[in-house]
């Protein structure tokens, strides 16, 4: 297991957002982190990264992660693609990528192989890119460095259907090299990528197991996620 989470709790401004979340992420494949809006999926990722104060136990690559500085965890190979992309709007595409580089030989070949468009747009300000292009930048800057695990938060949110498919294809290629913990609302994407699934409900782990088992059980899907199995949210 690359990531083991046990009894993870987060309190923010008086509300108890996570109340003992527990699950593992396998060394290979995609683990989907699912649940309705506001159950704490993004908070779970941010707690693992040390961006919000949390209690409990998180083992990343066998080492305790809670209490360590975000940048150290990232340097140890914890890549983060945040919700809403968070590219630096005032920086050019090239500067966004250059900022992320922290190893002597960054994997620009992989990045430009996956996203040939970024080479053309190197001099463009990231703030003027489309949502899909910004998502490419957000994924690309993580891939420049070697990773042991990627945390990817709603990569298809707000994207046009054709772009969703393209992003899913890219994630599928990446998943062949490095495990991914994926927060995703689009069940079609989950169906395509995920090997394992974890469902959160009201700050707790409500279900975990094989993704296929969850998605083939219409009742479980409806009660846990509040959607039918065939319909994506977008």
């Amino acid at each position, binding site marked *: 297991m690359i990531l083991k989470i046990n009894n993870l709790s987060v309190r*923010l401004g008086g509300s108890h957002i996570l109340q003992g979340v527990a699950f593992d992420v396998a060394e290979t494949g995609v683990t989907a982190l699912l649940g309705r809006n506001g159950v704490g999926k993004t908070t779970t990722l941010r707690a693992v990264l040390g961006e*919000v*104060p949390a209690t409990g136990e998180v083992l990343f690559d066998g080492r305790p992660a809670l209490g360590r500085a975000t940048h150290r965890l990232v340097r140890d190979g914890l890549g983060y693609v945040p919700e809403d992309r968070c590219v630096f709007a005032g920086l050019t595409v090239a500067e966004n990528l250059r900022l992320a580089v922290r190893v002597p030989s960054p994997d620009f070949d992989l990045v430009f192989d996956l996203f040939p468009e970024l080479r053309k747009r190197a001099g463009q300000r990231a703030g003027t890119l489309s949502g899909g292009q910004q998502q490419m930048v957000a994924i690309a800057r993580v891939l420049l460095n070697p990773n042991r695990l990627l945390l990817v938060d709603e990569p298809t949110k707000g994207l046009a259907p054709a772009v969703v498919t393209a992003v899913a294809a890219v994630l599928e290629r990446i998943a062949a090299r490095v495990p991914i913990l994926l927060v995703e609302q689009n069940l079609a994407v989950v169906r395509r990528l995920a090997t394992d699934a974890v469902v959160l409900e009201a700050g707790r782990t409500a279900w975990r197991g094989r993704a296929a088992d969850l998605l083939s059980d219409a009742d479980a899907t409806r009660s846990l996620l509040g959607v039918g199995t065939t319909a994506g949210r977008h």
Partner: protein
Amino acid sequence: MKSSSVPTTSPAASPAASSPSPPSVTPPGRLRRLAPLLALLVAVVLPWSTLRLPGLFEGPLNSPGTLQLLAVCLVFAGLALGYDLLFGRAGLLSFGHALYVAAGAYGVDILVSHYGWRLWPTVAVTVLAAAVLAALLGAVALRTSGIAFSMVTLAFAQVGHIVINRDPGGLTGGEEGLPLSSAGLPAMFTGVVNTVNLYWLALAFLTVVVVTVHTIDRAPLGRTLTGLRDDERRIAVLGLSPYRLKLLAFVLAGTLAGLGGATYALVVGGASPHIASSELTLSLIVMAVLGGAGTRWGAVVGGFLYAYLDQRLARLGGSLPGPFGEPLFVLGTLFILAVYFAPGGLASLSSRLEPLRRALRPRPAPDAI
């Protein structure tokens, strides 16, 4: 519950209310409810005492020098609590509170000294003017929030400071300040022998502020203001206008500051540009935080102690080594230490050591959100 001053002689009058506004009555709550009343009583009869407290005061308690020192402390205790209505309760970090203090002080001073007005109508008109000024400037400043609000209030107050320093039409006396002409004052406030009346006047001012602010604390308005400080959206959801509530708090605080400024001018016998300076506002912030911003008595204790130390250290200045002769060095350093080790101010010290532990933890927990 009646209010009171907190003379240094009765530390029992500073109950540690570490939680914001709503009073939590702990087991010895009865005593705590009575303590402020007792302290007020002690403060009222104090001028009849000839007790000497060497080290604390130079003369006996009823000497004019001591009474004057105590009167200034009481005024600052009131000013600090009035400021804490904005800062601790409503969460508005104004850097321009000095403007309304100066409006009160210079208003009374100018009308009495230059125009020969009688004192009481002057105070009424001046305080009203301070309220109107706060309403006008607050209406503009509150269109912004956060740091921008702080900057706008700072800039407005700076205008006041500049105007006072330039001495327009010979009204303010410029950098020298304007002594209060005793000719226009009631006999009870003139002459060294009547210092005791100034002391009682300052005590009355503090009482007015405490009663006002504590009444607000207990009223729905107080809870709404602290709600506003914690989460503006929640108040907006209740159908209340955050803007109007904040403006109300701003005007109330400005009015109390105007009254305090008027009292101050009487107590020290005039007004000087220093009370219009940003340094005065900064020291009000220091007082509120030192004592415990947002608590019932924190700002009162902080203001009283600050003013006491400021005056005593200034007098002892020459005899202390190096920078310790500078009151602001001592107070500024104390303040920094307080921010680190007692984030709740003096009011929290007795009941909490948690902040110390938190401050000493190697890596502070990152902020929420």
